[in-house]
């Protein structure tokens, strides 16, 4: 089969940010009727390539051709009008506006010159139903979870009549069902002849959906490959520039079974109406407890209750055998509980400050402002965590908002680790993080727990939960339905079955 002419061709693209050469002589092409994955580590330049293409940033060097004609977009609006529809990496919608409007703003259905609200709501609901999302489209977007927001962003992009559809990490907050739904839509659009650019750090997803791959490393093009012809190991090697052995080394961590000593933290009958039914859960020192369950099954809710971010309606929390009142996150921090939330962008980092300032701020706040941290100590600590998490660029004075999405996430994680908590709650810590860094983070969790830290580990990836945890709590429909010891014969299949059947095995 001879390949059709590319709809989009970028050649010799260069982009310089102060101190960083984000893109250097990158060539990229997109064929109609094809799903093309753009792959690279955190900070490789994927989002930057998308942003120079769609007129968010100016380009320093190179040319862009759309359907054979040279183009330069001055703004995302211009790119959209030329038929390029984009979902950017972080959800870029207006949380204050109703869902329906977020889908249609800029091209509202009108009647007699005025916005036809009823029609807009009807079409929005229809569109979302096709994505199997059933929500009240007149409620503000902010009242819905991250996953729903991400689906709304996708609904907006696919409804725009486009020749090129760009999805920058659209699946980072979605669960398996939603991803499958998205893929169905993507395949349909591909068959209609639309060219789709897809970014993700989930290798399985890349292999499932993409026809062709372009790999970037450190702002340079590594190459373009047909998915069918590039085995996964080779892909990873090309992407990170070395073999990835770390992942393999972390195989299963069966529960040590050191007779049940008194747990560090215990929740007894803790619950809150409408959020999570009363549950009892203990976590011991040096223990990693995983939480598995579908999105919206109550995983995050448990974390929020234990951190005092929401008030428990009933039940009690015991730490070191004493009952404590976790009325606020501050109280939890005083008991040395740390919580790295799922929605990192909204909570936690101050975008205008540097990596160092963000890290030290957290530590200083916990120490109290009367005991300043000496500069040398600061540097040592920051250095340590930048290396431990492989934050790139490894420059403590880089401003947070200039880091790539995945690297911001690593800083967020470092911010909590630096407090050296006794209990660390991680809600989806590896979403949006490349495979190399993911292995680093998993290793870090293991090391920390070996050092005595208790960890509550929440992830939608069952393999990951299983690889790290000593015990796994299974949730379904806002109820903790089972607690399984991670012995040798527990498999992801068992977990899946428990989740599906809703009964303890």
């Amino acid at each position, binding site marked *: 089969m001879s390949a059709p002419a590319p709809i989009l061709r970028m050649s010799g693209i260069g982009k310089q940010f102060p101190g960083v050469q984000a893109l250097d002589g990158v060539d990229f092409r997109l064929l109609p009727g094809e799903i093309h994955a753009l792959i690279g580590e955190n900070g490789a330049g994927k989002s930057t390539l998308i942003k120079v293409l769609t007129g968010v940033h100016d380009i320093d060097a190179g040319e862009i051709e759309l359907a054979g004609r040279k183009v330069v977009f001055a*703004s995302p609006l211009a790119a959209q009008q030329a038929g390029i529809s984009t979902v950017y990496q972080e959800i870029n919608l*207006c949380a204050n506006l109703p869902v329906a409007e977020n889908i249609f703003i800029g091209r509202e259905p009108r009647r007699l010159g005025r916005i036809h609200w009823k029609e807009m709501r009807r079409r929005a609901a229809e569109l979302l139903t096709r994505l199997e999302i059933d929500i009240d489209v007149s409620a503000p977007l902010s009242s819905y979870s991250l996953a729903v927001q991400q689906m709304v962003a996708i609904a907006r992009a696919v409804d725009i009549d486009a020749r090129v559809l760009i999805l920058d990490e659209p699946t980072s907050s979605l669960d398996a069902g939603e991803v499958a739904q998205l893929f169905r839509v993507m395949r349909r659009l591909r068959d209609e002849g639309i060219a789709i650019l897809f970014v993700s750090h989930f290798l399985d997803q890349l292999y499932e959906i993409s026809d062709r791959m372009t790999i970037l490393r450190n702002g340079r093009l590594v190459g373009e490959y047909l998915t069918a012809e590039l085995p996964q190991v080779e892909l990873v090697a090309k992407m990170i520039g070395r073999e990835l052995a770390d992942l393999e080394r972390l195989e299963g961590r069966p529960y040590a079974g050191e007779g049940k000593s008194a747990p560090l933290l215990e929740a007894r009958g803790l619950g809150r109406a409408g959020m999570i039914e009363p549950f009892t859960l203990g976590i011991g020192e040096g223990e990693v407890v995983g939480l598995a369950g579908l*999105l919206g099954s109550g995983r995050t809710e448990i974390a929020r209750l234990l951190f005092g971010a929401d008030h428990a309606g009933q039940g009690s929390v015991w730490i070191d055998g004493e009952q404590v009142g976790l009325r606020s996150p501050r109280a939890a921090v005083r008991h040395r509980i740390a919580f790295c939330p799922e929605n990192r962008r909204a909570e936690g980092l101050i975008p205008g400050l540097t990596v160092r300032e963000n890290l030290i701020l957290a530590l200083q706040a916990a120490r109290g402002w009367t005991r300043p941290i000496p500069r040398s100590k600061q540097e040592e600590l920051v250095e340590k965590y930048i290396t431990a998490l492989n934050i790139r660029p490894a420059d403590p004075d880089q401003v947070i908002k200039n880091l790539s999405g995945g690297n911001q996430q690593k800083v967020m994680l470092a911010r909590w680790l630096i407090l050296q908590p006794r209990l660390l709650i991680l809600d989806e810590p590896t979403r949006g993080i490349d495979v190399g860094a993911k292995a680093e983070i998993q290793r870090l969790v293991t090391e920390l727990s070996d050092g005595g830290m208790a960890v509550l580990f929440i992830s939608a990836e069952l393999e990951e939960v299983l690889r790290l945890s000593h015990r796994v709590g299974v949730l379904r429909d806002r109820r903790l339905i089972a607690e399984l010891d991670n012995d040798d014969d527990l498999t992801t299949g068992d977990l899946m079955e428990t989740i599906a059947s809703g009964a303890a095995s």
Partner: protein
Amino acid sequence: MTTPVGAASLTRRLPVPRKYIPVLVTACLFAAMFVAGGIRYEGFATGQIILNVFIDNAFLLVVAVGMTFVILTGGIDLSVGSVVALSTMISASLLPAWPAPAVMVLVPAIGALLGLAMGAIIHYFEIQPFIVTLAGMFLARGLCYTIGTDSVSITDPAFTAFAQTRVDLVADMWVSPSVLIAVLVVLVAAYVLHYTPFGRRVYAVGGSEQSALLMGLPVARTKIAVYTISGFCSALGGLLLSFYMLSGYGLHAVGMELDAIAAVVIGGTLLTGGSGYLFGTVLGVLVLGLIQTVISFEGTLSSWWTKIFIGLLLFTFIVLQRLIAGRGKQ
């Protein structure tokens, strides 16, 4: 599929959508003040009292409408009071020579132009609206004094006609033509905000400028337009004030920008932008006006009490908004 806890379960607990609560609170406050006044003072609880509030504050209402647009985008316009004064001054000084209709066209045009300039500076040079409009405030106030330092009275027949005409409504109630103009401005503005793409862009920019840009909305045009609208409304408010005062003076409308901001905030619009209703602003102006009325009925209270009450109200509303916004997150 997933069932997010969110809007659905929250609104089930509240009888009305949360977004309407601030406006409802203001409406209740207004009703309560009116009833309390009616019980306490003879001849207070009449329709004309409310109409008088409109008559005495028509100019403020128009200015506050413009301010609502600006605040909805997350900006602020401190120049409005000075632009009002400048408008009275220009009207008063031009009127002896120019025909009244020409003045009535020219003055709003000047206001719009000033707003346009400030909006363009704010957007293209990425300077805080606070700073730019503060400069605009000094500039406009200073320009008044280059025209004249004393109060200039207006004797033009068209203007005096506007000042003295009574538009009769039912049952002996009446309003001034200015009120009709103000109401028209409110209706047009409410339509624009709710039913036109431009209006919705105002909310989007206030929600998140960055997102609005990435969604492909013309952010530059929207931001510049709201300051232009505010400038236009201020100048129109200035015209209404010159009907009311029949004079132009550099010391007119001192501090009116703060009254306008107070009215918008009491009306439930968030200072951070993206949330609020024009109807709330109308209520905000009415509440401010009614406070003055109550104090004049009371007789023995000095007019400073107006400020004290407005201050207390502002505190209450800002705290209220915090609480509502805080509960909305999760």
